[in-house]
């Protein structure tokens, strides 16, 4: 018998806190946590580091840390998503610090990479479009990139972002609003080049 279920058996609609508690009680249930958060973690990392290969490595590192530290998560101290993305944020920060600068593949390199995938034209175009957006986002300030990644990659609420970045909620909203406006300007400029 290798699937213990000792602990809390909570029969509630699935939410993130329940997923976390189940995984704490039964590590085999970590699969559900992984499946639920993979997309958000990977997208968040991609926004921050750009390259797919680095994003894969960092995503693996983040989930390994989440699994290792899962017993330390205390629901009464905050939401699981905020706890998880705090780990993700620290891992990315360490990675970027090691890089000393934030190297991203050039758009040309990304185009080469995309064209080597032997994908249908439409998929190649979509991949190029995503790479193009990432490159433009990479020209924003650190804080602006972070807020975009937390909002659109990690899918956090403004309140959660504010907590992570130690801002007021309204301040986070204003920064996000301005950043999107600035990004729009940069995209306009790129399109007119």
């Amino acid at each position, binding site marked *: *018998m*290798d*699937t*213990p*279920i*000792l*602990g*809390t*058996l*909570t*029969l*509630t*609609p699935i939410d993130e806190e329940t997923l976390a508690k189940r*995984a*704490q*009680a*039964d*590590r*085999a249930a*970590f*699969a559900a946590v*992984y*499946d639920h958060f*993979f*997309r958000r973690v*990977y*997208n968040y990392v*991609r926004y921050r580091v750009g390259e*797919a*290969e680095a*994003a*894969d490595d960092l*995503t*693996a590192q983040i*989930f*390994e840390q989440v*699994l290792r530290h899962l*017993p*330390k*998560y*205390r629901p*009464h101290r905050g939401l699981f998503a905020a706890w998880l993305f705090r780990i993700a944020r620290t891992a990315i920060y360490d990675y970027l610090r090691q890089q000393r600068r934030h190297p991203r593949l050039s758009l040309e390199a990304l185009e080469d990479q995309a064209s080597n995938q032997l994908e249908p034209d439409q998929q190649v175009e979509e*991949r190029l479009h*995503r790479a193009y*957006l990432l490159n433009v986002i990479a020209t924003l300030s650190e804080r602006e990139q972070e807020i975009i990644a937390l*909002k*659109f990659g990690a899918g956090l*609420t*403004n309140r959660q972002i504010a907590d992570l970045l130690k801002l007021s909620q*309204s301040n986070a*909203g*204003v920064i*996000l*609003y*301005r950043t*999107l*406006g600035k*990004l*729009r300007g940069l*995209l306009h400029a790129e399109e007119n080049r």
Partner: protein
Amino acid sequence: MNEEDWADYFSRELDGLISQTEKDSTRSAPADFHEARQVATTLAQLNFSAESRQREKLRRRLLAQAHQSQEAQMKMLHWRHALTWSIIGTVTVLMLTLTLFYPGGVAAAAQNVYDALRSIVLGDYSRAMQTKPSAGNDPAPLLPDMWKIRTEIGNFAGNAPPGVEPLVRSVTTLEEAQALVNFHLTTPTYLPDGYVLREVKLAPIGGTHWVLSFYGGAVHDIIIVQMPGGPQPSPNPNEVHGVYDGIITTEPIEEIDFDGRTAAWIDGKALVWSVDNMTYEVGGVGLTPTEAKQIARSLR
């Protein structure tokens, strides 16, 4: 409205926009607002995750790691455990019915977790189990939010209900303890010479408490434990909490008769039995079954 107002309005709209449930109802908004909204729409539709080349491989690796970690958790020795359940909301009526009317199902499910060499049924919500010895004598920590109490007759562990800190309270009189629990605390009218109450520990579990009374003697304690099991009262009418207790030991357990009831003699130092969903334990180092029964009969 100024920029801050529009940012605030924008933030309120954004989550709906991301989930693609929000319609554009802001025709009077400034151009900045529409531009921000347009970019947000683009970003909300971006998904890079299909480009990951490690997703499945990483999933397998993590599950293997999780499995190893789980095995380490299972190295335990003579623990009294609680499996608690919470049933919340109307969608779980079937489970609620099954739990209330077929309590043995819950107990059986919990029992199946262990590869038991011997199992003694003490009540609908109570079992004593002898399991195969595992490496190491010190039990690995179980759940992070579990309370744990180590005693001379074995270790006790359980988890507090949702929203309650897993803190064990300690008081020095039964009167203080009685004021904190929703069931009658029993007092022994007989104890061997020299034993007096020195401490009562109360541990939160499934909407109630387990209560451990320590009677100190010259060398060792006599410990009397009350462990309520089964469905427990809940402050929320849409929730049902309950407790299943299981005694798990690698030491021999023996089924014995206690005045016509099925009881278990655990680890050569504790008598355990169950009456009306309340499991009792009387134990101490050097205590004989005869002495334990004498104390047990004197509980009022």
